[in-house]
């Protein structure tokens, strides 16, 4: 700990403007204590912790760009003859919603770039939430005490998907109208209440004249409001429970190690927000998305082949394509085949995800609180279950575009459908077995390295003529030359240049360590020494690989 400035005696009354304003605020709100606690909050550092941040920032960007769009969008299904500057559609009869979307794209300066940023941000929002959720799942971050945040996160993901679907349906173009038609059919397929529900949602038979206006308020007020509230709760719980962290040198169940909020984490998080915004802005400008003017206004008699929904609907699209033509007809009633892949299947998937933390705790009888994460290899059953679920969803996702795949690779479409049907049943168990073996293999390798050391690549010939490879033990060895360190859930260094990583946390340089000039190196060494002298024995900085 260095002190670069000389101790200066603080006056009883602040004289600077900043000091005076701070005192003014504190005399009224008494926040000095709680505020400092938050400024000093420690955030651990790992790249995988940024996924949730990306989702949060995407949400903020969605609110900003969405507010802009709402100034120009007219959520009405009333007919209008288009008379804007996009000449190919001039004189075409269309809904006001579609006409105002064209207006945003062609007649509002910069409207198109904001529209496209909004769309890209929506894709990013759902994608970041999903990857964040996978990170939480595979590292066991959902375990006690964080089950509630897992449920909130799952709700956010589901709401995000619904919000996205509603959002890209609003322009009332041919593509989204077809999506609406399918949504109507899905609601119709629900037994007993389906027809009534569909008529309730659409205000009569499809498409009616109300749905865009209704979904607009759902899209701009209802769901964003719920999302904002749940994100607030999600973050508040996270702050209250503090972050999880990977095991490693200096990490314990009872501490958080990292940077504090002010100033470093705040600067980095703000910087990261702008980078996410910048990437989405560049995408919005450079990568065209949802060119509704090419699709034309919605017309129930038309559809374009090869039409694809936004990526997060791909799973449902695929399950709908693969599900066999099984219809139940009983006592004068019908349960259409659409019901199973679009209502029952997502219900099961969401239900399993929601129940997972509780199922795992019950089956493993694990009632302890966990703040340290697990490496996926150390929990092979969970990791393999996750791989199984991912494989299942990936097959469905790819099947959502099976017509495009069939076209690109000149495969029979029917073969793609049958391939998808078989793959949904065969690949997930296969993924389970393979992942399980991989986990065990990685575990064994970790233990092998701990026992025998790191391969050095040096081959030695013994006097007997035997060749052996020299291993560098990671720590002290017993009489037989076997390492005595046991596995502690942290990454085990497996290459020579990884050795001592724990102590080189502050290595300078991005790709190569920076060689400091002699006078600077001298000063650094002095600081290092001072720090070591400073540190009391038994502090968390001690590297403890053994337990």
């Amino acid at each position: 700990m260095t002190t670069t400035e000389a101790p200066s005696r603080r006056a009883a009354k602040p004289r600077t403007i900043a000091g005076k304003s701070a005192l003014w605020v504190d005399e009224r709100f008494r926040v000095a204590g709680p505020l400092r606690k938050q400024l000093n909050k420690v955030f651990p550092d790992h790249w995988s912790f940024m996924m949730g941040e990306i989702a949060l920032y995407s949400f903020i960007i969605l609110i900003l760009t969405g507010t802009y769009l709402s100034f120009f969008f007219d959520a009405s299904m009333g007919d209008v003859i288009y008379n804007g500057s996009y000449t190919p559609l001039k004189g075409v009869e269309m809904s006001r919603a579609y006409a105002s979307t064209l207006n945003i794209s062609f007649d509002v300066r910069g409207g198109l770039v904001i529209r496209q940023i909004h769309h890209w941000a929506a894709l990013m929002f759902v994608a970041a939430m999903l990857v964040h959720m996978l990170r939480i799942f595979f590292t066991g971050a959902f375990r006690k005490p964080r089950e509630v945040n897992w449920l909130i996160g799952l709700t956010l993901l589901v709401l995000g998907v619904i919000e996205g679907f509603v959002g890209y349906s609003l322009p009332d173009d041919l593509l989204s109208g077809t999506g609406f038609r399918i949504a109507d059919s899905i609601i119709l397929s629900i037994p007993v209440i389906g027809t009534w529900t569909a008529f309730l949602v659409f205000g009569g038979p499809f498409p009616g004249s109300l749905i865009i206006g209704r979904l607009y308020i759902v899209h701009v007020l209802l769901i964003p409001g719920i999302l904002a509230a749940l994100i607030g709760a999600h973050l508040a719980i996270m702050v209250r429970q503090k972050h999880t962290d990977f095991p490693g040198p200096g990490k314990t169940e009872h501490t958080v190690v990292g940077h504090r909020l002010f100033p470093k984490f705040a600067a980095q998080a703000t910087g990261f927000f702008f980078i996410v915004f910048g990437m989405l802005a560049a995408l919005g400008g450079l990568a065209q998305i949802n060119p509704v003017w090419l699709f034309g206004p919605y017309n129930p008699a038309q559809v374009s082949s090869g039409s694809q929904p936004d990526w997060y609907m791909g799973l449902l699209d695929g399950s709908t394509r693969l599900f066999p033509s099984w219809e139940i007809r009983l006592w004068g009633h019908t349960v259409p085949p659409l019901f199973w892949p679009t209502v029952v299947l997502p219900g099961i998937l969401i239900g399993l995800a929601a129940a997972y933390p509780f199922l795992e705790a019950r089956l493993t009888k694990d009632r302890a609180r966990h703040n340290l994460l697990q490496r996926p290899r150390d929990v092979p059953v969970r990791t393999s279950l996750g791989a199984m679920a991912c494989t299942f969803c990936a097959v469905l996702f790819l099947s959502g575009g099976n017509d495009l795949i069939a076209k690109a690779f000149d495969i029979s479409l029917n073969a793609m459908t049958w391939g998808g049907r078989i793959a949904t049943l065969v690949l997930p168990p296969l993924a389970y077995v393979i992942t399980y073996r991989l986990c065990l293999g990685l575990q064994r390798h970790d233990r092998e390295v701990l026992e025998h050391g790191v391969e050095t690549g040096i081959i030695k010939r013994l006097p007997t003529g035997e060749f052996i490879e020299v291993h560098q033990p990671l720590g002290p060895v017993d009489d037989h030359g076997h390492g005595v360190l046991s596995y502690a859930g942290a990454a085990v260094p497996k290459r020579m240049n990884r050795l001592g990583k724990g102590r080189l946390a502050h290595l300078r340089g991005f790709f190569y360590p920076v060689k400091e000039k002699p006078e600077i190196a001298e000063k650094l060494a002095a600081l290092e020494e001072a720090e070591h002298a400073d540190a009391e024995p038994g502090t968390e900085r001690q590297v403890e690989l053994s337990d």
Partner: protein
Amino acid sequence: MSGGQSNTPTEEELRAMSTEQAMIAGADADDVHVVHRRARFPVPGTKAEKRAERTVAGLFVLAALAGVAFIVAFIVVPYKYKTPSHSQNFRFYTPILGGLLGIMLAALGIGAILWAKWLMPEEELVQERHDEVQPGEPEEQIMTGATLLSGVNDTGLPRRSLLVRTLGLAGGAVATVPLVALVGALLKKPGKILFHTLYRPDSKYPNGIPIVYSDGRRVSPNDIEAGGLATVFPGVPGGVKDASSPTLLIRLRPGQGTLVKARKGQSSWGWEDYLAFSKICTHAGCPASLYEQQTTRLLCPCHQSQFEVLKDAKPVFGPATRSLPKLKLAVEVVDGVQYFVAPQDFQEPIGPGFWERG
């Protein structure tokens, strides 16, 4: 470094401390321990430090310049759509704006992160979670539990079951009334709407509902070549826009007519080589609009259901379970020209299945 309130220095001590010392004392008071802290550039004013500072400042300048360029481009670059015979410069408008916006935001963001990484002091802090049961916590739990329990006891609810029940009734009513009001307002009775289309016979058209193209022209048998098809609609007000009425009029190739295996009782519904089916897929309601002449199959591009036209549009592949409903065709002669009419409505609900469909 055990922290805690007891170790907090006195006001006098704090006043005597440097800013950094007082900051560390504050962190300790919050059970946040600074285990490592030193300046990024322990020797101030080195070339490396200046280079780092200049790089960060350069990124901020880049952000500012990109912002200025954005404003200029926003005003100067043409943005109005022009047909291909004119200058296509407007096509650069959106990429330029997005690119500049991206540069501005990303440069600011990268600058901020490098600032934090390169110029702010290296730090490693350890914060106590206080996750285990704290001293005094069981006492807190007991006292809070007692407060809650006593409050509930004070209301008398545990022994006044009449109140509990009536309150439940009132609460149920308060919760249900808005639900009923909302759902009741939104409800629409489906009735038989899904069982009819606009081909329903109308006394205004004694020979049957005229069949028209999307532009309202009547459809004549001579319009369509052998092996061709057309999307047609009921020629009544609103018929072209109605979601349930789009119809496929297919003209088979010569000789194919004899191969048709019609559904029971529907063999006479075609007219010569012409057959008409609902265009709305019986699976999810998309228009089944791809027709393969060679295999006489109709394909729905949404979920790839395939219908065999020669088997009266029976589903032969994919998730659809029901044939596309067939429309009975007839012809009326007006001013010596033959026109198609539909003498009766579809005899079953068109489109996707639903519970009451039977």
